[in-house]
Structures are given as structure tokens and as C-alpha cells.
């Protein structure tokens, strides 16, 4: 048994003390430079961070990178008369790829002929089951299902986690706001494809 002289304790406490002082030094500097809340959070999650690295959550949130994914949502556009038009064609790709099988899609039928039309009659997503893997958004051929950034989704009952078409639908402008780079990329790809199909005269 080697002898203990308490050097380790003193050394470690000195480290903790330095860390403690550093936290206040950073806070004071931010106070005098009137740094914005987002600026503070950005500093805390940068490689230069010093001192305390936690943030006070409900007041400030960490910055969400574009790729961040939470529950899926369905994208709709507006047609010429300003009516909502779902991008979803009920092709079933997302329901087939979903690893936990938490998506239920009912394909719409033409009321007169009874033939299936490319639109969902109902779209149910059990967010209790969803594991936020993002495969549905990744493989959707129409860019109709996307992963959301909103993670504060408390509900009072279990039914509250059963999301239907009404809860899931969000406008394309929201999609653009949440994932600007991806949106631009997809739009460019679609235009390129359309151009390849009917080249301008």
C-alpha cells in the first residue's frame, strides 16, 4: 500500500476552482459586451468553450443544426386558387420503410369511379412508436415527408400522440425555414429533372 499525502486531492480541487472562476469570468465578459443569448449559446457549444458548459434550458435552447431530426411532418403546397395541396401521393414508401411500422396510410378513392387516386385519405403516425430515424424523409420520392425540429410535444393523453393528417401537415414555407439548404438542393434537383424531361426550345 503506497502512502497518500493528499496531493491528488489538492491538485484536483485546484482544477475545479479554476473551472469555477473561469465560468464567472466568461459570464462577466458576456455581460459587459452585451452578448446576445444565441451568441452565448453558440460560444458554449464551440470548441473554445471554457468554464461552465451547461445552459439554462427553458429560457434558452441549444442551437439546432439543419440536419437535426425529430418527428416527421407532411409538406403541403398551395395551388393556383390558394387551396392546400398535399404533396403526399400515398405511394406507401414511408409506410414500407418505417422500421417500427408506425405509419398507417389510407389511399384516397375517387368518389365516382372508386379507383384509387394519388392522395392520402388518412395518414396516421403513432409518435409513441416513432424512433425518429428519419428513413421516411430520406426515401420519400416526392419530398412530401420531412423531419421536424420541434421537440417540445407534451400531450395530456395517449391519444394526443396519435398524429393525423391535420396535425402533421405543415406548409412548404415552414419546410424551407427549417431546412433551407436541403430545400434549395431539392428544388434545384427537381428543376434540373424537369428541364431534362422537356428541354426549353
Amino acid at each position, binding site marked *: *500500500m*503506497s502512502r*497518500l*499525502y493528499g*496531493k*491528488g*486531492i489538492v*491538485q*484536483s480541487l485546484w*482544477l*475545479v476552482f479554476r473551472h469555477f472562476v473561469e465560468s464567472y469570468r466568461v459570464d462577466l465578459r458576456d455581460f459587459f459586451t452585451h452578448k446576445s443569448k444565441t451568441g452565448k449559446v453558440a460560444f458554449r*457549444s464551440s*470548441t473554445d*468553450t471554457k468554464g461552465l*458548459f451547461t445552459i439554462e434550458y427553458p429560457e434558452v435552447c441549444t442551437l439546432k*443544426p*439543419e*440536419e*437535426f*431530426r425529430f418527428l416527421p411532418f407532411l409538406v403541403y403546397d398551395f395551388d393556383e386558387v390558394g387551396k392546400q395541396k398535399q404533396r403526399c401521393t*400515398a405511394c*406507401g*414508401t414511408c*409506410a*414500407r*420503410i*418505417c*422500421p417500427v*411500422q408506425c*405509419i*398507417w*396510410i*389510407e*389511399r384516397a378513392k375517387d368518389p365516382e369511379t372508386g379507383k*384509387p387516386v394519388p392522395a392520402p385519405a*388518412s395518414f*396516421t403516425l*403513432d409518435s409513441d412508436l416513432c*424512433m*425518429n*430515424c*428519419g*428513413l421516411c424523409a*430520406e*426515401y420519400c420520392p416526392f419530398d412530401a415527408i420531412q*423531419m421536424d425540429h420541434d421537440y417540445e410535444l407534451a400531450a395530456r393523453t395517449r391519444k394526443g400522440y*396519435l398524429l393525423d393528417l391535420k396535425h402533421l401537415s405543415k406548409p412548404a414555407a415552414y419546410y424551407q425555414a427549417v431546412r433551407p*439548404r436541403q430545400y434549395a438542393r431539392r428544388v434545384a434537383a427537381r428543376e434540373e429533372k424537369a428541364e431534362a424531361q422537356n428541354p426549353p426550345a
Partner: protein
Amino acid sequence: MKTVETVFQAFPAVQPDQRPGYAGFLVPAENLVDVVTALKSDAGYNYLTCVTGVDYLSDQKMEVVYHLRRLSGGAPLELKVQVDRADTRVPSLTPLFPGADLQEREAYDLLGIRFDGHPNLKRILTWEGFNGHPLRKDWREAFYEQDAKPYKSRWPEGKYQKAEARNPFGDNVSYPLDFDPARHGDVEKELRQDFAQPVNTASEISGEHLVVNLGPQHPSTHGVFRMVAELDSETVVKLEPVIGYLHRNHEKICERNTWLQNMPYTDRLDYLSSLSNNYAYALAVEKLAGITPTERANYIRVIMAELTRISSHLIAVGFLMNDLGVYFTASLYGLEERELILDVFEAVTGSRMMCNYLRFGGVARDLPEGTMGMIYRLAFERLPRKLDDFEKYLLENEIVKVRCQGVGVLTPQQAIAYSASGPVLRASGVGFDLRKAEPYGVYGRFDFDVPVTSHGDTYDRLVIRMREIRESVRIIQQAIKSLPNGPVMNGKPTINTKVPPGESYGTVEGPKGELGFYLVSNGSANPWRYHVRPPTFINLTSLGEMSKDVKIADLVVILGGIDINLGEVDR
């Protein structure tokens, strides 16, 4: 050292496996022990990696699959024993390889294969009184819907229905016919029967040995894990790990899934190193389907896997301090660096822990703008600086030394015999690392060392982890410098991966040891067999050996030194 072929000349009954897509040798059950003994002594196959079984329902055959390794490197040797499905009896390999202990128990529990000569053949992941063996293909779970996903009820007539509504009994527990829950009620009594309670005559004060349960609800067991320890006052005489509290039959779930659907499930094995798990599974499927990932994807995979190793080791080191009684200070210093790594994961993959980033033939998406800078600053500036601090304050700390040195010693011979892998094996002086021994991906192109220490105690495991972080940083630095441009996906992404019939065993050197996936395909959209070789589950085999004659206060330190992860142990 003889070659495998010369060893097999003495056994004419051993035949190469000639089914298309299969490799290895078919060994008759009665020859198995002799064949393995000869391979071990004459051909240098002294490390048993993986034991599992496959249920070939249509042939009415049960196949037991063994993977043996040479520690000098190279691909594993595969041995298969085919037995009748109705009466599955195979000789146990535990006398030759004690490391087969828990794996054979798992195969017995999940597939109903009886290993003759196993000292303690009882259920391990499910409970006593569980009805049937769940990985048999004719076994169905309580909320059974269909043999394979995607389920037909989801599309195009997808009417929402709760899974519970499908079970006519409203109950998901069934018992075997001869099982009486009332009779088997006193589990503790049964447990005590396994543990002898001799009167201690050696010590001055004679007394009975005491059986103490540490866990499953114990803060230092890192999850729901139980150690049954037989104590002579404060000294541990015998110890047995009891697991399965978090069991969800990952393998059965994944046999119902399609190939791609399994990718997010692998994240949930060892949830602290999801990208390594992704990597091992992607390698196994790529081997089977003959897909080659693109050059850039290979480099991104290496960067991500090494960042995962760093974050996992930081947790291991930090929480070992927690187990020592430093409480949370040291863990939080580790978590701080890990937090920055998780920020990289979040920016690249979209999630901090459940990354689901690798695809067959590449990765899901290229590195977004700005993330390369984050990785660069971490690898070249922040991590090397912080590692100096860690080494100064933790490794040279006298209290850490006193508590960890000489605790939980595993000799090199024991470590090999118990099939230990990863830092546990290397701390015992065996320099075996799959990145060097059987280089996968582009690891052959990087210059790095495999740290080895010789004492085999908990302190050495700590040292190994710190040094491995340094080597990982070195690899990341090289990978950043040589990262090529180009596509990150080979071909067009598709949801229907075409996998020809056959088998494959894909392994990576995960942060905690050798993580392997043994897959069998019959050509359909779902794997026929999906087996995980979980490193920490197998490292637990040696826990009993490490804990002999230590004080009970050191048990949590030893457990922290192995660095188990219950998501992976219990699966």
C-alpha cells in the same frame, strides 16, 4: 504451427461447407471437441470469438456456428455442427474455452440447443418459466402480426389499430405446460441452492457465507444489472452476473425487419457508440451483398467511428471515477468533451446518439457545411490539450492509483481463454486489435499504434482507454488530411437491398471490443438469421474470475473497468 488442412487430415468426417455463399467447415457433433482441441494446440486457433446457432426450419436442422481466431491476425475460422432440430445436443466447449460459457447459455436460452457438459446450462436472457425458445422460427411473440415487415395492414388500407388489440388474451405472458408459477415462486431460494453455503472453518470467527445481491437497482451497475456475490465477511468468494432485465430480443425483431430497417435498431445496442454499431452491420451486409462503399464514404466512416470511440472512452473513464466515489466531477469533465463530439454527430447525422448514418455502399449524406471545421478544431486543438489534462489529473492521481492498481487482475492466458476483447484484452498484455489484425475499410492506410499494458488490472484498462483516445485523434487527423472528394454513396439509394443467399460475419473493433454481426440470408428481403456478437456481454464472462478474493467495495470498480453497456448485454 500446422495449417488448418493438415489438422483436418486426421478427421475425414470434417467437410468444407459447400452451400453457395457459405464458407467454413461442417464438423460432426461427436468430433467437435477433438477437432477444436487439435486446432487450438496445433494450428494456433486459441481464441473463440463467437458461438451461435441458426434454425434451418425447412431442413429440420439446427446449426451451431463457431468462429475461432488466431491472435496473430487473419479472418476467423468457421466451424459448423448440424444437429437434428427435435433433439439438439452438442458437446460444450466450456472445458476448452471458458469464454463459451455465457454464449452457450444464450444459444440454449434463445434457440434451445443443449450443450452437454456445460456446468451451468440455464436460461440467461429470458426468465425461468419462459415458454419456448424465441429465436426458433416457429416461435411467435404475443403481439405477432406477420413474419416479415413491411406489414400489410399499413398500406394502402392503413386503418390505425393498437398492437394490444391484436392479442386475444390481453396478456403477453405464457408459461410452459409443466410450469407452475406458484411452485417456482421463490426465486431467491432457488438461487441460494446454486450457491453453496459452507461453514467457514478457516477464519477465527466461524460464520456462514452470505449471499448478497448487488443490483439490479444499483447506481454503480450502469443499468439494470445484478451481481450475485457470495461473501466471506467482506471478501468475495464467488460471483455470478445475472442479466436479461433489459432483454427485448433484438435478434428476433431484426429477423422480422428488412435489411435497411435494421440500421436504426443497431444504434440501440450499445447506445454510446451507435456509429460503430452501424459500421459493423453495414460491413456484414456489404460483405454478403458484394457492395463496395465509395472512397469518401470510407473516410467519413473512419472519422465517425473514431469520434465514437473517443466519446465512448470518455464516458467509460469518467464514470469509472464516479464508481470510485469521486462523484460527478470527473464524469462531467469527460462529458464536456463528449458533448462537443455529439454536436458534430448532431450536425452530420441529425441525432446525437441514435445516429442511423451508415447505408449499404456509403453514408446517408455528405458532411454538411461547417462540420469539417468542427471536427478539425476538435482533433487538432481541443482534444489533444484536454487529454493532457485528463492524463495529468486522473492517471497520476494517487487515489486513483491506490484504488485501481492490482484490482480485478486478468492474466493474458485468462483473458484469451475468456474471449475478452477490446481494452480488457489489451490491458492484459495481448495486443490484439481488429483494425490491425483484420483491417476493414481503409484502416490499413493509417499510421497508428495499438496500446498494450501488462498488468491486466483496472488501472491498466484506464490507461489503455486514455492512450486509445490519443491514437483515435491521430487517425482522425490523418483522415481529415487525406479525405478525398467524390460521392458518398455507391449507386442510387434504394429501400430494397438485394442480398443473395449466404452468410457473412462482419466485425469492427468497437470502443468496447470486437463487435460482430453474423448474418444469414436466404435471398429474401429480410435476414434469416441476425446475430450480434456483443463485446461487453462476452467480457462479462470473466467478471467472476476477476472478482475472486477482492473486497466487496472493489466490485463496482472492476465492473466500471470492464465498461459494460446494458443495452448491448441484454439486447
